[in-house]
């Protein structure tokens, strides 16, 4: 047994970790209580097997690529960072990228990850045409919107619980360059931030960073980043059409003492970040895709800044109608606590694609908290606000929500469970997350 955790490093639990080298070996590795794991960037317990965790990053081959259409067939362990580095220079990028490029294709499908373009272009699963799935029952089947469509729609966003994703066929986006034309808008409070995001609906990419140390009149003050793919004619003379993807320049080599992040350091950081961003507000700038999409990827092991006990990310989505009041209430409570995070992100989402996909039309807010004190109780209270507003939490980030919160937020759960049961009648596929939220006890 090995101690395993997600990116948030909470919880840390025992699981038997295997790294099979062939699809046959994957099938043999499945015992009751198994789940697949990609690059381990889910924050909580989603990619930890109840008994056995099947590491898939060794499956990193591209099967075929058609430059005429951008269609690609690949093994599930290929990382998006690899796809970007390899195919970016040939003029193709993934349609959807989350906030880190160090995720596997299989993980991105299982979490149906969203990016800064979800409000207009949907999630990762929308660009997946078919999946080779090893079901819990032991069959290997090709699933798509046309063939085994229930299994497909349950697998996109299904947190790996329908079986093990072995391969996928997806479409890549043709791009002229690897650069983004960015516009920064500063918003002095939450109303202004939400208005700016609404006004940014037409932008391909939009996201807001919220200063969650700001209180009172300034509550919700934000920087909104809009982005479009830049054409060749927009690049500075001599700039490479595709910027080099640098390895992380900084690294957090050890766990920082948990006191490193306190209300003073967080406030100072937020103040500085807001002021520097606000100075760039206004005109358009052309920036490399790497800092635009993956600002934290430049710091290896940034999850260690929260200390040895790890951290929790709380990401909720609130339907559009009631969003303003609930978001205001959450931000107010968070700012009063004083330990909220460097990373408060607000963005608009559209309709989700899979049965259990997280997105719904509304606003999503993501917050980080170090694991200490009464944080679990505090988040339970936030969850009550989310549920009352018809919202829900993102399973890929979750390590602690209650069954009641989960069941209230995902009304399609019974349909998902029925499909899961048909693919895995004996219940072989189980993760720590499914034990916590899905499985019959």
């Amino acid at each position, binding site marked *: 047994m090995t101690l395993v955790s997600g990116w948030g490093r909470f919880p840390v639990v025992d699981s038997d970790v295997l*790294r099979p*080298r062939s699809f046959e070996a994957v099938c043999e590795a499945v015992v009751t209580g198994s789940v697949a794991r990609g690059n381990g960037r889910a924050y909580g317990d989603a990619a930890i097997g109840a008994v056995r965790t099947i590491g898939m990053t060794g499956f990193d*081959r*591209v*099967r*075929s*690529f058609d430059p005429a259409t951008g269609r*690609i067939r690949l093994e599930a362990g290929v990382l998006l960072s690899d796809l970007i580095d*390899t*195919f970016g220079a*040939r003029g193709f990028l993934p349609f959807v990228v989350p906030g880190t490029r160090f995720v596997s294709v299989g993980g991105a499908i299982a979490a149906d990850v969203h990016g800064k373009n979800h409000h207009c272009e949907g999630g990762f699963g929308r660009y997946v045409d078919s999946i080779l799935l090893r079901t819990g029952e032991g069959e290997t089947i090709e699933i798509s919107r046309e063939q085994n469509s229930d299994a497909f729609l349950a697998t996109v966003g299904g947190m790996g619980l329908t079986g093990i994703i072995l391969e996928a066929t997806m479409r890549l986006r043709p791009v002229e360059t690897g650069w983004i034309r960015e516009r920064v808008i500063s918003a002095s409070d939450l109303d202004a931030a939400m208005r700016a995001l609404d006004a940014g609906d037409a932008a391909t990419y939009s996201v807001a960073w919220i200063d969650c140390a700001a209180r009172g009149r300034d509550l919700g003050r934000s920087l909104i980043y809009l982005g479009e793919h830049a054409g060749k004619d927009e690049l500075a003379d001599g700039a490479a059409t595709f910027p080099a993807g640098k390895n992380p320049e900084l690294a957090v080599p050890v766990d920082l003492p948990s006191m490193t992040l306190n209300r003073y350091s967080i406030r100072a950081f937020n103040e500085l970040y807001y002021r520097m961003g606000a100075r760039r507000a206004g005109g358009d700038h052309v920036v490399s895709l790497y800092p635009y999409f993956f600002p934290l990827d430049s710091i290896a092991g940034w999850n260690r800044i929260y200390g040895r006990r790890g951290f929790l990310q709380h990401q909720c989505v609130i339907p559009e109608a009631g969003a303003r009041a609930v978001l205001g209430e959450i931000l107010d409570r968070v700012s009063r606590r004083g330990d909220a995070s460097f990373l408060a992100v607000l963005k608009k989402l559209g309709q989700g694609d899979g049965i259990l996909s997280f997105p719904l039309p509304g606003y999503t807010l993501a917050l980080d908290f170090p694991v200490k004190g009464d944080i679990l109780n505090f988040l339970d209270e936030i969850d009550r606000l989310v549920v009352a507003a018809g919202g829900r939490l993102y399973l890929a980030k979750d390590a602690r929500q209650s069954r009641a919160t989960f069941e209230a937020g995902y009304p399609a759960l019974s349909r998902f469970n029925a499909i899961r049961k048909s693919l895995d009648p004996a219940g072989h596929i189980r993760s720590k997350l499914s034990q916590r939220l899905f499985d019959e006890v």
Partner: protein
Amino acid sequence: MSRKSAIVLGGSSDIGRATARAFAKAGYDVGLAGRDVAALEPDAADLRARYNVEVGLSKFDVLDTASFNGFVSGLPALPDVVISIVGLLGTQDTAQSDLAHATMIMRTNYEGPSLILGLFAEKFLARGSGTLVGVSSVAGDRGRASNYVYGSAKAGFSAFLSGLRARASRGGVQIVTVKPGFVRTKMTEGMKLIGPLTVDAPVVGDAILSAVENKTDVVYVSGKWRLVMLIIKTLPEAVFKKLKF
């Protein structure tokens, strides 16, 4: 000008795959050679899809030295670069009493790689150009209690490459010795590796490419290993023999 070409012997290993990717990414046409050609097909498809290069496959068994002449003459063209990744860690405990196992470790790490690179060296010298890369090991720098059967074979391979370099460099042929240190691969899975001294296979692939392009003689993939092995090599035998690592 036609594209450069590189052949990777031991193409299905993790370091072999990473090296093939590094060279294909740099625009080389690539040959993959291994015992099981069918098992190399997915890697060939991967290289073609990613980098739009030509990829050839050939059967190569490092223990079947009788086939080496045929292997070299059977290649469609003499490549610009030949890289031997072949190796077998084996089990030291077993090798201490099981002569067949010890022999296999020695032949896989020393005899086969030396003979095949030596054969290519003759062809390259006749042509007057080319680069040969041997992946040896820091374990060959000094025999240690925990792995001296493997280490002695790697020491022999390193010595062979060193001598070949001295002879071949006058003939326009470059010889590169690579000492990777700890690498996270199938071969080392389950072993306790020291984090700061351990790299992933792609780092080794990139280091081999850059050694070939920069005409480096001996490469420690991580500079830290050069220091570690310098210390290990200079310890007096009276002290060294008391160490159990």
